[in-house]
């Protein structure tokens, strides 16, 4: 028996419960704003480390089969669809109402694309608008998403210049896939290219941020693959709390003002480059 912790009026929770009924999965619902408040408090106290609490509180639904906990609409549906097989494709996002993000075509095993697309179809059937992300990996999956109309907005992270791409990604990503993905995203009606100015461990052993010149190369890569210089391109701040690498967490943070040279370098190749403002 599954347990789902929900909140009164939570549309996303209802979508997950609909899916469980379709799959004939028995479940118990605890509405944490009503009769399930204490049950959720006990569950949360016992599983604090596994449950994400953001600036606006806990993201619902929270789903568990007694062993595994999945939080958020995307991760919950992915678990119901295919268990661990879809790990990496879905994470908790930041968008609300009818928009769902945290969907990454590059994050999981391309061999499980059928199940991945099935989850997206279920979300679209339930009137969700989907922001889908990629860093270039799994181009064929991206192509399928686009072909079936399963995305409303595409966000492509250009990790850096091609020479540093796989290093930054922490895995091998073919240059060809990156360029093909750029070309696909560039033609999509609503899209955003972005690069976070991250610190990387150089061959010398030194840890330093991507340079303005390297961001310029990333912008040039977009221009080459997209065929024009008018793509929306956002240069983003590095967030140390988001990295798993302890060495990178120690690097001194930078602020929006320090991104101006990056913007200047990028604008040579992408005229609509802008920089992210800190919250």
């Amino acid at each position: 028996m599954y347990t789902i912790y929900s909140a009164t009026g939570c549309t996303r929770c209802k979508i997950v419960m609909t899916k469980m009924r379709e799959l004939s999965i028995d479940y118990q619902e605890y509405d944490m704003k009503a009769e399930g408040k204490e049950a959720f408090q006990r569950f949360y106290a016992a599983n604090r480390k596994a449950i994400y609490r953001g600036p606006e509180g806990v993201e619902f639904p929270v789903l568990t089969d007694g062993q595994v906990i999945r939080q958020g609409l995307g991760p919950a549906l992915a678990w119901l669809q295919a268990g661990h097989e879809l790990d990496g494709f879905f994470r908790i996002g930041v968008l609300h109402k009818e928009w769902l993000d945290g969907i990454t075509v590059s994050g999981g095993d391309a061999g499980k694309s059928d199940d991945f697309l099935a989850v997206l179809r279920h979300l679209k059937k339930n009137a969700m608008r989907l922001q889908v992300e990629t860093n270039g990996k799994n181009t064929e999956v991206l192509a399928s998403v686009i072909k079936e109309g399963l995305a409303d907005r595409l966000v492509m992270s250009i990790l850096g210049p091609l020479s540093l791409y796989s290093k930054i990604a922490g895995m091998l990503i073919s240059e060809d896939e990156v360029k093909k993905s750029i070309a696909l995203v560039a033609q999509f009606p609503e899209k955003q290219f972005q690069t976070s100015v991250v610190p990387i461990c150089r061959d010398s052993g030194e840890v330093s941020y991507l340079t303005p010149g390297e961001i310029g190369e990333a912008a040039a890569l977009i221009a080459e693959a997209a065929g024009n210089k008018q793509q929306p391109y956002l240069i983003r701040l590095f967030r140390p709390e988001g990295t798993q690498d302890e060495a990178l967490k120690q690097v001194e943070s930078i602020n929006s003002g320090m991104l101006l040279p990056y913007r200047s370098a990028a604008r040579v190749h992408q005229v609509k480059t802008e920089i992210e403002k800190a919250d």
Partner: protein
Amino acid sequence: MSYPSIYPTGTTVYDPTKCWNGYTIFQAAEEGALLIDMNGAGVNMWKGLHGFPNKLLPGGQVFGHLGVRNPAYGMQDQTDLVQVDWDGNVVWKFDKYEYIEDPGEPPQWMARQHHDFQRTGNPVGYYVPGMEPQTDKGNTLLLCHKTLKNPKISDKTLLDDTIIEVNWDGEIIWEWCCSDHFDSYGFDEGAKNILARDPNYRLAGGGQGDWMHINTMSVLGPNKWYDAGDERFHPDNIIWDARETNIAAIISKKTGKVVWQIGPNYDSSEQLRKLGWIIGMHHAHMIPRGLPGEGNILIFDNGGWAGYGLPNPGAPKGIKNALRDYSRVIELDPTTLKIVWQYTPTEAGYMMPYDANRFYSPFISSAQRLPNGNTLITEGSGGRIIEVTAEHELVWEYISPYWGKQLKLNMVYRAYRAPYEWVPQLAKPKEVPIAKIEVATFRVPGAASLAPVKETTVVGAKPYLLDPGVLCVAATDE
């Protein structure tokens, strides 16, 4: 108020012994940047060079712009800022702030500059002994526009004001965005309500809210307040004012935060009540070190209509709800907000309030402190540029004869006085005094003289007994 249909233009008042003599630069409406001598002779017209504003530089160079964005898509967006030499060659240019693709127009980079800019070496954009703006190096601060949305202010698209600093190579090295600091400007709930509904919505570009309308921006420069330990007045800090919100503020260059401010309301403290409402102001700046009054803030307080707040009969929706039909130039101590000098209709010799709007420009305008203590005032809407002494004597007056064809105004946005030495290309011009003209007897050809043909004594007529107290409206301080 009555305004004569026929009146002399060019220089109409001139006492060389009392003026700070030099050249005056201003934008002649729809003609170009014009440099005149004290007698009003045009010594160089940079034909077609836009000016928002024009500023003279040492060596006979001038700042201006090559063009403006199609008003259908942008409001007051100058395409660039250029530095032009005496012969019209562009020696420096900046335009790479935003790539603009307007329907039917060639896509291009634009500076989207408006209202002001400053060059390293001189904080305020006008002549200060010992503070020459750099002409072959240095950074430039520009006041620019950015179109964006900020749900804290309104759900409508906003025409926001930004300040950028660019180096000599045209790279943007610093940027400040006005709407980022919305929470710090002190708008009350009435102002926020009307801002949300109508952030001064303008038609250009499919509709944009020109909510602040910053129209001046300059650096404080070295000053006595900072020397005395007041960090608010750090020399690198920037002062600006906004005509729609009636705010003048100083921001920290280091943090971008507001460190000193007057407005948007002027009834929240005894100091501000004594200062009086500053409405639709222009050219708020700190008088630089080296000039009389250094450290004080000089403001052209337009009057007119501005502000956001509760509705009143003059502003039924609450937008532009502060109203006044005369202008004043005020110089105030920024630490006490006391007025240390002013030029208002009273000092100009007009009866208040009856004839107050004889000194009145509801938009544009400026005030420049001169090295001898005089002040050059641009009363812009009527194209009038005057120089007054510290004792308020009018010693120079120039009325622009340049009327626009697209806009039927002889407006002068801002005029600046510069020393003769800044134009080495010319010999020092002759300074010919203009004898004072008695207006009562000044006649155009064909008009009769003053004296009546027949003067008749009426037996029993008593002397006139006139006092402001007998006029139909009360005096301001009655």
